[in-house]
């Protein structure tokens, strides 16, 4: 009986030790917090936000963090209107937006935006000129690039998307995007559309690339975490979290957590490059 008790104590102690690192350290600051934190906006941010929120809510169940998408435009608008505590954007808010809503801008990661095709597509490299021609509609058949004799199905994002803006600016050199392009409303929807359409080309945040979509090398540089970090792959942007006025309380702690070492780990895990 006594022995069993001892074994139980050892087991308990070792379990305690195992859970200690996860619940200690940086998450300690959340211990006395309670309340609700509302986040919305950029869809590239969502995996990181979810992971961070889960970790925080695990140590303190009195904190409720809700995460919604909508795109960069929505994020900036909603935080400006005070509908959410944090509005995420995949582009820096314009000076006008910052001034109008008194926004405070926090950049916590760098992210690449990569052209993607269906994994069944045998075309995996393009030049920048070819890319611009594809999106403007000048090249309209995969045959012209050495692929199947099928029309190229273009996918783009809505005008409020930060991902679109960066891709258009740095990937297409502000060239036109054909009006025939299909429009989807999030990074997730883009991935879903391209992964189901063998003749598709679209673009997603590098952090969202997995085996369901294939990245396309641009001028010989494959968009990966490494090439974005080292600066060889040029189509990149910051990921931002914006608050109205200086953040305080739970909002501040959340943003501090993201920019800390634990946050950096989460950010890298999801394919982005943390910035300090």
């Amino acid at each position, binding site marked *: 009986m006594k022995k069993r008790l001892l074994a139980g104590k050892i087991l308990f102690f070792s379990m305690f030790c195992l859970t200690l690192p996860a619940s200690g350290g940086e998450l300690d600051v959340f211990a006395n917090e309670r309340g609700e934190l509302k986040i919305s906006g950029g869809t590239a941010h969502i995996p990181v936000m979810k992971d961070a929120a889960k970790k925080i809510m695990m140590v303190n169940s009195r904190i409720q963090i809700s995460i919604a998408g909508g795109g960069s435009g929505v994020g900036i*608008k909603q935080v400006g209107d005070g509908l959410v505590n944090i509005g995420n954007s995949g582009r820096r808010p314009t000076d006008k*937006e910052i001034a109008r809503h008194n926004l405070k801008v926090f950049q916590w990661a760098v992210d690449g935006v990569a052209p993607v095709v269906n994994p069944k597509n045998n075309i995996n490299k393009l030049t920048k000129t070819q890319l611009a021609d594809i999106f403007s509609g000048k090249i309209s058949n995969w045959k012209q690039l050495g692929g199947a004799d099928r029309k190229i199905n273009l996918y783009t994002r809505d005008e409020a998307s930060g991902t679109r803006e960066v891709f258009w600016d740095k990937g297409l050199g502000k060239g036109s995007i054909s009006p025939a392009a299909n429009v989807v409303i999030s990074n997730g929807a883009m991935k879903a559309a391209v992964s*189901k359409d063998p003749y598709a080309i679209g673009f997603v945040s590098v952090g969202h690339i997995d085996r369901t979509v294939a990245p396309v090398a641009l001028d010989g540089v494959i968009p990966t975490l490494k090439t974005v970090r080292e600066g060889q792959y040029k189509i990149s942007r910051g990921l931002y979290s914006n608050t109205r006025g200086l953040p305080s309380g739970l909002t501040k702690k959340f943003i501090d957590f993201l920019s800390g070492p634990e946050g950096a780990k989460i950010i890298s895990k999801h394919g982005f490059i943390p910035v300090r």
Partner: protein
Amino acid sequence: MLSALTCASVIVLILLFLVYMGLPAIKGAGLGQLLLTSWDPYRDSYGVYPMMITTGAVSLLSLAFAFPLSLGCSFLINAAASKQIARQLRHMLELMTGIPTVIYGFVGIFLLVPVLREFFQSGSGMSILAASMMLGIMVSPTMTLIFCDSFDSIPRPYLDAADALGASRIQRLYYVTLPAAKFGMLNGVVLSLGRAVGDTLISLMIAGNSVQTPGSVLDSARTLTAHIALVFAADYESPEFRSIFTCGLILYLFIMLLTAVVRYVCRREA
């Protein structure tokens, strides 16, 4: 009485709101500009002409799918099937009217779009055709039920008279039931058209949302409702955002006009 007044005033208030919010865009670019040009915000063009065409095409085509389907179903329920089967069919249709449109959208993406893509070998499969087929399926239960109701409301002596003259079921349907139920059916069609015009999610999910003026039913295109949903994320102060009130106004006036025309036709004939 009070609730009726509230309802009525809300409708008027919405109209006033839309006009008020839509005015800056209409004044800024001119109504003709908004109605007749295409959407290209980077070149300061905020026209919704392609979306109007798409809305028209999608909703009319969806009726073309839904009408024969509903007509057949209501014949079956009303005349051809046994009482037992008719009752069960009716229950099933009532259930179907309650299915959220997002479900139809999902089914469309996973089942219909790939089939259309491979069958026509043109484009991504996300097209006017895909959206209108799905919309047709969505509105047909409602349409069928209204058809059935209008068949049921035909006075019994009419039908008895036909029977007494030795008409077959088909003859009775063709010469008595259909003419007598004409206006009830028209109501059903108009109500369904309203639903098809107003539905957002199905077209947002499977019509493709491109901003071109569609040249064929296999083209990807954007309806007015999907356009509102897509542009809604834009900055409040931007001309893009202001222009979507015009879309709302167009939709509103279109439905009003449709209702008015049907009322007028029904009253004149009756």
